[in-house]
């Protein structure tokens, strides 16, 4: 996408959605993870009766409140964009997304409005037990809110539990539980939330590191580091586990995404995993140039990760694009033919219904159903459109994995030196701890780039490409709002950082 950036409406709309989603993801993971850390800190206060833990909880709660206040409603903009820039998509998925997003709104309003108020206002008004319960409910509620959005996103990547209604031109939910418990939805929820837990742990460790570097609030910083590092370490392990699940899911259901983020052009049995590499910028689809200028590969590991079977075949971009009969893979051109037939049959059905010819309409519909799984391919202009940007996916995926591997090591180091009682002397580690807040954000954003750029060209995998999902607007309209959002979100981000820095400088109440 970046290498082909042009002024067309589709790309400006994509860029706008990416901008607003990435800004949204600056705030959300911190809410998801920090809410649980607050619950842990307050649990320690209630269990031990040590007022130091109450002081710690209240300090981090202030930062939580700042992040929450700045981040709240940044997601609403994404829904605005659905209706304005992506009207075809918005209409087609309305019946599927309606229930999850409505439930998300209910969760957000009732749980957060109720328990937030008790958490912030209730320190001297309710019992310790009641207050602790409210804090836990905020954590649970915030994470359950995220579930519904991720169920919706999961459905885009792997549309299940629905049937296409040609009269209403929309997908209609047939099985709510199939949508909710889709393996992709579950994988997305567990992986995205655990990335928030890691980020929040890095946030607490990073700010605590800053206090130690400044020689301030040492006891509070050490206690915070211990709790956050344990949470961060466990979350990192869980993140790795859920990441493996996500990659396996990609291999089974979105093999082109996996091939792109691995830079795998030619499929192989016993396929090796590229752990690091430099993509050949001159490489084009269909040519015989090497995909990498440099790569470090572990033999056989990709087959294991993708299929959970050593020696299994992992299709590459070329296999998926041009087909591979020996492995039962249909090429994109063949899928495009079937998709074009589906589009033509849908048109025939529409015309037959208009003309009142129910016999012809029934025949067209029957035939359409036989081709409808390829509907989205009928809109592609060339097979190569089915390949997402390889370099962007490759680098984003590997940046995410490298950082995800680094973070548990970081947490272990913090625990080790804190346990030894020498953490305040490890200036190099403390400095890196501060910097790791930024790295946590980089990893999270990189992950979402893989998830969303990796699914291109699909708005709904195999069913609706992005080019058809859009509204018929001019690029100028979208450009205006793109820059408006850039300005608004930058102001919000600057506001958050400056208010947070002020509160951090003030520190916990003595």
């Amino acid at each position, binding site marked *: 996408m970046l290498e082909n950036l042009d002024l067309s409406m589709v790309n400006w709309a994509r860029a706008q959605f990416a901008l607003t989603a990435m800004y949204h993801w600056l705030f959300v993971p911190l809410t998801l993870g920090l809410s649980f850390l607050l619950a842990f800190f307050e649990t320690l206060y209630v269990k031990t009766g040590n007022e130091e833990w109450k002081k710690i909880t209240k300090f981090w709660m202030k930062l939580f409140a700042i992040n929450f206040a700045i981040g709240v409603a940044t997601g609403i903009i994404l829904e605005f964009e659905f209706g*304005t820039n992506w009207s075809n998509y918005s209409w087609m998925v309305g019946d599927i997304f309606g229930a999850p997003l409505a439930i998300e709104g209910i969760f957000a309003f009732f749980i957060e409005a109720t328990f937030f108020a008790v958490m912030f206002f209730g320190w001297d008004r309710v019992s310790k037990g009641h207050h602790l319960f409210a804090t836990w409910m905020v954590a649970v509620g915030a994470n359950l809110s995220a579930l519904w959005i991720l169920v919706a996103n999961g459905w885009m990547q792997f549309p299940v539990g629905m049937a296409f209604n040609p009269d*209403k031109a929309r997908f209609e939910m047939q099985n709510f539980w199939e949508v909710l418990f889709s393996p992709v939805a579950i994988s997305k929820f567990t992986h995205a939330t655990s990335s928030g837990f890691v980020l929040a742990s890095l946030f607490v460790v990073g700010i605590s590191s800053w206090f130690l570097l400044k020689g301030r609030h040492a006891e509070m910083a050490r206690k915070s580091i211990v709790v956050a590092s344990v949470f961060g370490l466990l979350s990192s392990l869980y993140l790795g586990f859920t990441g493996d699940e996500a990659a396996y899911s990609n291999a089974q259901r979105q093999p082109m995404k996996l091939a792109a983020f691995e830079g795998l052009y030619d499929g192989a049995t016993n396929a090796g995993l590229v752990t690091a590499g430099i993509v050949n910028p001159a490489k084009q689809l269909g040519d015989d140039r090497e995909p990498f200028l440099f790569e470090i590969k572990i033999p056989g590991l990709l087959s294991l990760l993708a299929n959970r079977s050593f020696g299994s075949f992992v299709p590459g971009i070329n296999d998926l694009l041009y087909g591979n009969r020996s492995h039962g893979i249909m090429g994109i051109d063949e899928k495009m033919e079937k998709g074009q037939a589906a589009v033509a049959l849908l048109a025939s059905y529409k015309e037959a219904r208009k003309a009142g010819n129910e016999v012809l309409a029934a025949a067209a519909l029957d035939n359409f159903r036989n081709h409808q799984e390829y509907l989205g391919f009928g809109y592609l202009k060339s097979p190569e459109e089915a390949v997402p940007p390889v370099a962007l996916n490759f680098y984003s995926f590997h940046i995410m994995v490298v950082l995800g591997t680094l973070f548990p090591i970081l947490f272990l180091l913090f625990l080790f030196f804190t346990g030894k009682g020498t953490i305040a002397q490890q200036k190099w580690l403390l400095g890196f701890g501060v910097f790791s807040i930024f790295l946590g954000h980089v990893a999270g954003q990189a992950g979402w780039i893989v998830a969303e750029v990796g699914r291109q060209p699909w708005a709904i995998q195999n069913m609706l490409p992005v080019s058809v999902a859009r509204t018929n607007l001019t690029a100028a309209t979208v450009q205006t709002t793109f820059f408006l959002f850039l300005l608004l979100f930058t102001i919000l981000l600057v506001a958050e950082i400056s208010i947070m820095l002020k509160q951090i400088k003030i520190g916990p109440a003595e």
Partner: protein
Amino acid sequence: MHSTTSFPLAGRIVSFYLDGFRSMQLGRTLWKIILIKLFILFAVLKLFFFPDFLESNFASDTERAAHVLENLTLPAK
């Protein structure tokens, strides 16, 4: 602070929120930001820049469906 334990439950809940909001310090700044942001989002952006295309241009679900179906079958023409 006066005792509210003799008030009915609804009154105690309202009093809880009112006392909470009154005692806010940092919270006042955050609420100002939230309210300004919500105003910009709903009264400016949504109203002037983000109309729901299908709601604004078509009077019924039948018309909206027909429009989307037309877009879906365009490549067949």
